[in-house]
């Protein structure tokens, strides 16, 4: 059974008759542990898909299901990270990450009783993303890339089954971005969660994902998908191999076709 499935999902922002049709007849299904990337022209409703999977938005029609259950309210087993790291400026890096366990219901009580295991987990996560030594710094003392690493940790500390990423690396410079691709891949390989990554960077999608879904212009539909057969762990060198560039070219051509079609 599919872990996440969207069946002919449609979403209208605003009133049903006069509102903006953001997503139309979008269908996809993914397995547990799969890494999916959704790419498409800007404004095509990629982020809307994420919000519907997390339950922050309810579809106007169609079915969104996770683990075979219809999503009707915000799911608590999701971790979310956006392009804007949205760390709280009055909290240190460590406290920002612990915010998740302070709030998430199944952790908040045990965290209050005994914070030690959570602190250990936070330190371990910080070490994996290369932020050891910055635990007690405030967000405004970190670079953009470091803030985004901290934001990833905040999305993962409560061990969500599903990680939802909305263009998390879009505002970073090229080197930091490629660095974070590897950080994310390492986290994915060691922790085995399921990921939906929304991005407009085709190389990013091809480097990270098992399956890339391509969306049309607004109103967004999922028009095709492509498996990425490169073996993990992938290395940055793989980006320069012909099969990788061919794949990126193919993705690019499909999106260009979508843009022309309308």
């Amino acid at each position, binding site marked *: 059974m599919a872990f996440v499935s969207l069946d002919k999902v449609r979403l209208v922002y605003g009133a049903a008759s006069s509102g903006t049709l953001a997503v139309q007849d979008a269908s996809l299904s993914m397995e547990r542990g799969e890494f999916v990337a959704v790419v498409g022209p800007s404004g095509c409703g990629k982020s809307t898909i994420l919000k519907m999977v997390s339950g922050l938005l309810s579809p106007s029609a169609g079915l969104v299901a996770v683990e075979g259950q219809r999503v009707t309210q915000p799911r608590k087993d999701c971790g979310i990270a956006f392009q804007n790291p949205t760390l709280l*400026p009055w909290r240190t890096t460590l406290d920002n990450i612990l915010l998740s366990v302070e709030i998430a219901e199944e952790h908040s009580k045990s965290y209050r009783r005994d914070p030690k295991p959570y602190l250990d987990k936070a330190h371990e996560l910080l070490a994996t993303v290369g932020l050891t030594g910055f635990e007690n710094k405030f967000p405004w003392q970190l670079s953009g890339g470091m803030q985004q690493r901290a934001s990833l940790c905040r999305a993962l500390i409560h061990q969500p089954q599903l990680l939802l990423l909305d263009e998390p690396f879009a505002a970073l410079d090229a080197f930091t971005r490629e660095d974070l691709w590897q950080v994310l891949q390492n986290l994915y390989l060691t922790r085995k969660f399921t990921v939906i990554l929304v991005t407009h960077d085709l190389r990013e999608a091809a480097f990270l994902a098992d399956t890339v879904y391509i969306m049309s212009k607004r109103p967004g539909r999922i028009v095709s998908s492509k498996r990425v057969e490169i073996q993990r762990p992938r290395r940055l060198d793989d980006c320069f191999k012909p099969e990788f560039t061919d794949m990126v070219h193919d993705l690019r051509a499909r999106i260009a076709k979508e843009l022309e079609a309308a």
Partner: protein
Amino acid sequence: MSAPPPNDPNIGAPAVPDSLGTKTLEKAMPWAVILGMFVLWELICLVFNVPVFILPRPSVVTETLIRLWTPIMRHTTYTLWTTLIGFALAIVFGVALGVAVGAWRMVYNGLYPVLIGFNSVPKVALVPVLVIWFGFGPIPAVLTAFSISFFPIVVNVATGIATMEPELQDVLRSLGAKKHQILLKVGIPRSLPYFFASLKVAITLAFVGSVIAETVTGNRGVGYLMVDASSRFDAPLVFAGLIVLSFMGVGLYLVFAEIERRTTGWAHRGQEGNG
């Protein structure tokens, strides 16, 4: 203006050199301006021979201030208390209402027009009504101080809460956060800099409120002292009252600016650089 020569040593240097002299000058500036103002005032009065009952010289005002120090201080303490009580009420109700207006759309929709209307009423027009209700005691002054300093607090606290980033709300909601958790963990801390900024404005307004009330109703307080003095053409005493008021205003402003600096330093990190 011609372009600087290509090997101008000033190119690339900071616009204002960070020397010790500039720093000291920056610190000394406010005092220099105040002192200069008083000197100018004194000189103008002397040169144009302005009569004391129209504009007394600062030296005359200072002399009055020293001579009548005890009664002036008695009225000053009274005004200070009515102001602070009114201000404290404004903080309590302002924060409560600000949180409600910022957090719940319904409250915002319901109350905002009323609040704006209430704030548009000149507070001096309220004083006679307050006198009818509460007589000539300290209560009209307290309530006027309250009503005039209440609004900026409400607006600022509400703004701080209502401008929370939507992404952050999504992150919190996806963790299953309840409304009160979002408010306590994020909304209220994030509105603190707005709150303290409003306190600096509100405390000076509170003084305006209590003094206005005292000029109309009082038998005590700096407002009353000044009205009484002016009816006797005692201009030096009127000006002594004004000076005492401005000192109190500056003093309390500084107190709240310091509290702000200590509690919400994270919101003003620009000046201190990355530590």
